């Protein structure tokens, strides 16, 4: 047994790689050992010479070397003018390499929001896109109908970066034959089935509508500071980052970085709102009911919250 893995970095920041390096029990080295994953290539870590590397690539493309897992980090850059020459590898567009490898791979994983949906690069003019999605729209670089050898579409693991424990969990599932339940965005629901808001330590501020208006305050970041946690799927407040904390816990609004529309157009750190009520409400709530209830909730807020007498 044992699975082979090729990690390709395209238009990204390598943040997903470093996020994976933050995973623990097992750490990344132990993970690869436990899952008996053979890393054919990782740009930051492999010791193979370019000659060997090109031979590995050729053997994969020729079907001589079986590629089980293709992990792509970063957006696929198609510019300028569809040539892909904004991102080259040995003089050739890297996007061509993506195609070739994807067609050989057992499973293709989009590590992070850039590879999944295009992310930040897709908002520029380098014709960047995700592997099989362009922001909210299916298609992307490989096209709506792409299926890897395993019959699966590209498995999207969004997040900017993707949470290390999510990547290691999904790799474990794939290697050990676990079943992934994919959402409409081809995201495994097991790791994206809860909102970032669920488990936020500022939940009481949210409940009683005790609001933060500027940095450094204590309060809920949703009403004014642009926090996307109630509209964003992710485990950030259940599986802590670096096993310690999360952005909202540290007073940083959720940026909505697992969403296909990340980065949103509206300025960060500000909620789009009318008369003090955010335009975007927590997923699934009815506006009229919500407003009525939030009014009463604010009236019921205990003094300890209004006075911020809490270590949250």
């Amino acid at each position, binding site marked *: 047994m044992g699975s082979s893995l090729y990690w390709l970095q395209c238009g*990204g*920041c390598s*943040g997903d790689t470093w996020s994976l390096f933050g995973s623990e029990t097992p750490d990344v080295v132990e993970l690869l050992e436990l899952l008996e994953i053979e890393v054919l290539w990782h740009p930051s870590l*492999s010791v193979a010479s370019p000659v060997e590397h090109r031979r590995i690539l050729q053997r994969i493309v020729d079907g001589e070397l079986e590629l089980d897992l293709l992990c792509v980090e970063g957006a696929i*850059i198609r510019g300028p003018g569809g040539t892909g020459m904004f991102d080259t590898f040995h003089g050739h567009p890297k996007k061509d390499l993506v195609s070739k490898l994807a067609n050989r791979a057992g499973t293709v994983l989009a590590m992070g929001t850039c590879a999944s949906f295009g992310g930040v690069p897709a908002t520029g003019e380098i014709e960047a896109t995700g592997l099989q999605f362009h922001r909210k729209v299916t298609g992307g670089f490989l096209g709506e109908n792409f299926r890897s050898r395993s019959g699966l579409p590209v498995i999207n693991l969004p997040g900017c970066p993707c949470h290390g424990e999510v990547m290691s969990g999904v790799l474990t599932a794939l290697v050990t034959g676990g079943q992934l339940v994919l959402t409409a965005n081809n995201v495994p629901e097991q790791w994206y089935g809860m909102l970032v808001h669920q488990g936020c330590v500022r939940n009481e501020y949210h409940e009683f509508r005790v609001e933060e208006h500027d940095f450094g305050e204590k309060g809920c970041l949703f009403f004014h500071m642009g926090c996307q946690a109630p509209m964003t799927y992710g485990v950030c407040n259940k599986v802590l*980052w670096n096993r310690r904390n999360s952005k909202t*816990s540290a007073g940083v609004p959720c940026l909505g*970085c697992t969403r296909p529309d990340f980065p949103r157009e509206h300025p*960060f750190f500000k909620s789009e709102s009318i008369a003090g009520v955010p335009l975007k409400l927590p997923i699934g709530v009815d506006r009229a009911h919500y407003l009525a209830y939030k009014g009463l909730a604010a009236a019921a807020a205990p003094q300890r919250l209004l006075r911020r007498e809490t270590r949250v």
Partner: protein
Amino acid sequence: MGKVRITVPMNRVEGDLEVRVEIADGVAVDAWCSGTMYRGFERILEGRGALDGLVLTPRICGICGISHLRAAATALENLAGITPPPDATRIRNLTVMTEHVQSDIRQSFLMFAVDFLNPVYEATPLYGEALARFQPFKGETVRQVIRETKKILEIIAILGGQWPHSPFIVPGGLASQPTGESLLRCRLILEQFRRWYERRILGCELERWLEILDSDDLDGWLEEREEHWKSDLGLLLRLARQHGLDRIGGGHDSFLSYGGFPEPDQEKSKGKNGLFPAGFLLDNEVHALDEKRVTEHVAYSWYVDYKGGKHPGDGETQPYATGAEGDKYSWAKAPRYDGRPAETGPLASMMVAGNPLFQDLVRQNGPNAMARQLARLVRPAYFLPAMQRWLAGVSGDEEFYRSNGEIHDGTGCGLGEAARGGLGHWVTIERGRIKKYQIVTPTAWNASPRDSDGTRGPMEESLVGTPVRDPENPVELSHVVRSFDPCLVCTVHAVGRGKKLGRLRLSMTK
């Protein structure tokens, strides 16, 4: 023997870099560094909210995002005339340095040291030891580095929410107030890391290391005790000397440092420049830094030409798209200071700061791959005491944020040291939105292509003259390139909006 042109093997660098070298008679006679990716990051920022650089610019680089974050916040503070409260400055310095330290250690052992496992060295004395420690995924040092660098990053998670990529540094201070118990935990983590670094990396206490003031001291230290000799640093030094890394990888001998670790109490430290001051070192003379003297050239970069250099605040970035690019060969522009190329990074910081050991090493051999890497690997020895001091100095009673309302229109500049050297952000805000954003990264300095005068960038220059025994396996060149710790994910210039882009024909070797 005729000339050959080769592409230097470039795994294990952050980002997309290709280096071509011309070899004649076993010596590199010319070199070209190409950034092979264009991400158009700055253009993405245009038109966005005034604060959005805090979120977006760290996404340029996953290993030094906090440096970008701080530069973005500093640029806005510069624009708005805000000074963050002293405790916020302490925490910022601490977290930026934490990120540097993890990067320095990871680069040294996950990237740089791996070249000592090159097959060409298989029969040399220290190969077995190097293999046992530095083999990717398996070596004992590698495993420990993965474990311990992860732990020190917990400091950033505790204070900022997560690593990488949490915009917890904001104009005016920090997004939230660290609690006393968080700070205590950070002190423990920091002290624990320090002890590991002393025991495993240095083989001695920091205090002992800091006594080393010249190359004789260094030799003496190495021989003094088995712990020094056997430490990871000791082994790296022995390997570097065995393979002659102290005799390759020169350069232009001009060094740039942005400093950027201000002492918190700016009133008291007025005039002083904090740890690792900013400056430009040329011909053994340090010049005060003036950001106005920074320019970027595009003569050899894939952008529409302009004459000479332009200040980043005035810079234009239009990918050259006519199909006749001539000598252009990189997506990186060529930054210059006072019209000159400049090396930046840990060695440059040491030189500008007047560190006697590194001044002596460079005096003797000129800049070289070993000195450059040594500066990186021992930088934590200079950082850690300051980090501990700042952390202990956080009173917790005072504010960590000074509100400044909306960011008004204007122009600001944020300079500071990132892990790989000087990083600058230039921002212009108009009607509450970003009108213009320019970023000059450390690797843009080091891996710069030629400028309008045809002067090579520092890394290019450093490659020239390197003996290459086997052009098929030019490990010497690899040592030199890696000693700069290049990170080309930072070549992020902007595309002119609405411009129709034609097809680019690129004449790459192979």
